[in-house]
């Protein structure tokens, strides 16, 4: 999926960098992370190894109170363009950039010409002309990141597109599971919630399946994908069946903003059928780790008590989110002089 089609950024002369700011009519592909499908197993392994190294150094530096952790991306500018609100994702990307010595800049969508009716393509061309070295994009429309990657030369990292994908979230989730359980292959991971409208679920299904994990998805029938969408996973509305023997339970936020129509009558109705509480976990998967991409609606998807338990990995997910994004930046921006990933 990912092709090399331009000189590596680290070797580019200032002149080359200037010329890269011109809009390109051709559909050149650079090194993008739009979908989990952009990554093969070797690249996933390399990203995890890189993230591990980043995390180790981060923790050491934190003890020494030294910053930034590295200057491998010094002089580079990473632009975050978020057409949807976000706290942890955007700041994890910005922290990761800062830790690598890159300048992270935000393109303020609300105050830009987007509000004046500028087309998405024209906005993208403007962003490229500003001279950023990479773009992190979040957009409410599925396919927006692919569209950006198809039209821009600079690397595009998908920070979440509509109900499409959120690949860095899936990477950090898988990384976190592996860190806690020492492996991924052979595990059972159950994802609970609005699967059909969740980009986190979609990227996790693709990634975990690729890594040999048995994936189960469960939620109200109104929130489940077509049974043939992912033929290798369990799709069910039966929570007990989905939880039984699971090693990890991943709860998703019920995203009211993505549901034009009410897919369930109320929070109580959701909780009655698919809410996670200590009793249910104790009964069906007493040892399972609990994950959530955040933000959590306490008392809807997860009972408050579960958040405080040792089995909850929510804050560790956030912490690993920085390391994973550092790894993505390093490998996409060729910081160590190697070829960018090939898939």
């Amino acid at each position, binding site marked *: 999926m990912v092709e090399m089609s331009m000189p590596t950024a680290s070797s580019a002369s200032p002149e080359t960098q200037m010329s890269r700011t011109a809009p390109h009519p051709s559909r050149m592909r650079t090194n993008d992370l739009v979908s989990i499908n952009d990554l093969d197993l070797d690249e996933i392994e390399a990203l995890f190894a890189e993230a591990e190294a980043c995390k180790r150094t981060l923790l050491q530096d934190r003890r020494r109170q030294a910053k930034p952790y590295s200057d491998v991306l010094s002089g580079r500018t990473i632009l975050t363009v978020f057409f949807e609100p976000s706290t942890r994702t955007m700041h994890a990307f910005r922290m990761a950039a800062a830790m690598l010595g890159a300048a992270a800049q935000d393109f303020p969508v609300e105050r830009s010409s987007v509000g004046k009716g500028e087309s998405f393509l024209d906005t993208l061309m403007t962003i490229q002309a500003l001279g950023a070295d990479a773009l992190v994009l979040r957009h409410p429309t*599925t*396919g927006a990141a*692919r569209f950006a990657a198809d039209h821009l030369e600079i690397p595009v990292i998908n920070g979440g597109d509509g109900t499409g994908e959120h690949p860095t979230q899936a990477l950090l989730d898988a990384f976190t599971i592996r860190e806690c359980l020492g492996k991924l292959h052979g595990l059972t991971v159950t994802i609970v919630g609005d699967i059909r409208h969740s980009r986190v679920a979609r990227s996790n299904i693709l990634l975990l399946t690729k890594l040999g994990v048995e994936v189960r998805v469960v939620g109200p029938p109104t929130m489940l994908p077509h049974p043939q969408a992912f033929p290798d996973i369990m799709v069910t509305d039966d929570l007990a069946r989905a939880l039984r023997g699971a090693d990890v339970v991943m709860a998703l936020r019920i995203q009211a903003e993505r549901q034009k*129509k009410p897919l369930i009558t109320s929070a109580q109705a959701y909780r009655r059928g698919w809410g996670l509480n200590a009793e249910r976990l104790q009964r069906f998967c007493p040892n399972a780790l609990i994950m959530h991409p955040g933000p959590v609606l306490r008392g809807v998807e997860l009972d408050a008590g579960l958040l405080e338990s040792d089995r909850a990995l929510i804050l560790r997910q956030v912490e690993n989110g920085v390391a994973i994004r550092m790894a993505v930046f390093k490998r996409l921006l060729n910081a160590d002089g190697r070829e960018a990933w090939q898939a």
Partner: protein
Amino acid sequence: MSDLIIRQGRLLDPASGVDRRVDLAIRNGRVHAIADRLPDEAAVEEIDATGKWVLPGFVDPHVHLRTPGQAHKETIETGAAAAAAGGYTRIVCMPNTTPPLDNPIVVEWLRMQCEQRSPVHVEIAAAITEGQQGQRLTDFGALKEAGAVALTDDGVGVSNAALMRHALELARHWDLPIMIHAEDPELSDGGAMHAGAVSDRNGIPGIPAAAEAVMVARDVLLAEMTGARLHVLHVSAETTVALIRWAKARGIRVSAEVSPHHLLLTDEDVEAAGFDPNWKMNPPLRARRDRDALIEGLLDGTIDFIATDHAPHERESKETTFVEASFGIIGLETAFALIHTHFADRLSPLDLARLFSSAPAKTLGLPGGRLAVGDPADLTIFDPAQRWTVSPQTLHSLSRNTPFLGRTLQGRIVRTLVAGRTVYALPDGAEEATQ
């Protein structure tokens, strides 16, 4: 004395069942003589149609001519040129224009414009409701008097069942067919492609097949109740085919059309094409099971004919994400060659002629679709041997939004005549030019 003689073409006239090699003479815009061999006439133009098919000009009851108000998508001239290049001599244009064709003044204006500017016959389908808003019925009698031949709110469905009932009652009085764009807007809301495994795998909002079928079910029942003529536009779902089959068996006055793209493509193809917005239309390309049912319905007569739903869009409308892009693709110039390429084993040449000419004309009560002595010389000549590749250069429409760009097709329209006058001729050497 004749004005033109077409020599030794394979005449395919579905209305009379004729399929044989003949000379066909034209005089004063009409077919003057048909014979195995007509005598030579001095100083008369002749066309050598040896090895080619001579067919009644095609009739497409479903074309978006985008006039008035959307000249950046199509004009009367470019739309008519596209029709002629596709073998069509009569098209029906849809009312979802700016302003919509919902009152007799704009219908009359458009009719006069088309008479002056279009080399092919243009018929007008007027709106069922004012502004196509689904609230108040238009004045059917006045629209008919102004020249409308059918009524439709194509582009959107009529969601109010009582309003549709009254529309059918009045349409029956004025003897106008109601052509339905069957879509429940609540079920389809926000969707960009067929709701199924492919949409859910990719997180693209879906349009369920039932969004079409529930409206077809409602409207065939209302057609039975009112006795009106109901025509179902662009059938896309297996369940719709089953409902129409049931309604016809019951004696309800219902007809149906299918587009070439729904007969040939599925939602899996959309995914394989990387969600190129040129693969986005409404109704969407559906699952393989639906596509197979459409083919079966066409072959067993449940579906009456093929129509293109030619829907031109300017580049900007498609130069965005699949989800945001406009619905619709062009189709006039590729329809016949596509069906010939892919269905030659299942449809005889006479069947093809029928599905593109006599069947749509007869179903909707339009002139044309016949080519016997005395009939207007509205005809097209098709070379079944010629292979060509669809490219932007081969197209006459103002727009280029088709998923068939790059496809190599078997057979090509080489000439189209309206009232004996050539309105389209494939340029010499065009085969090379398209390579």
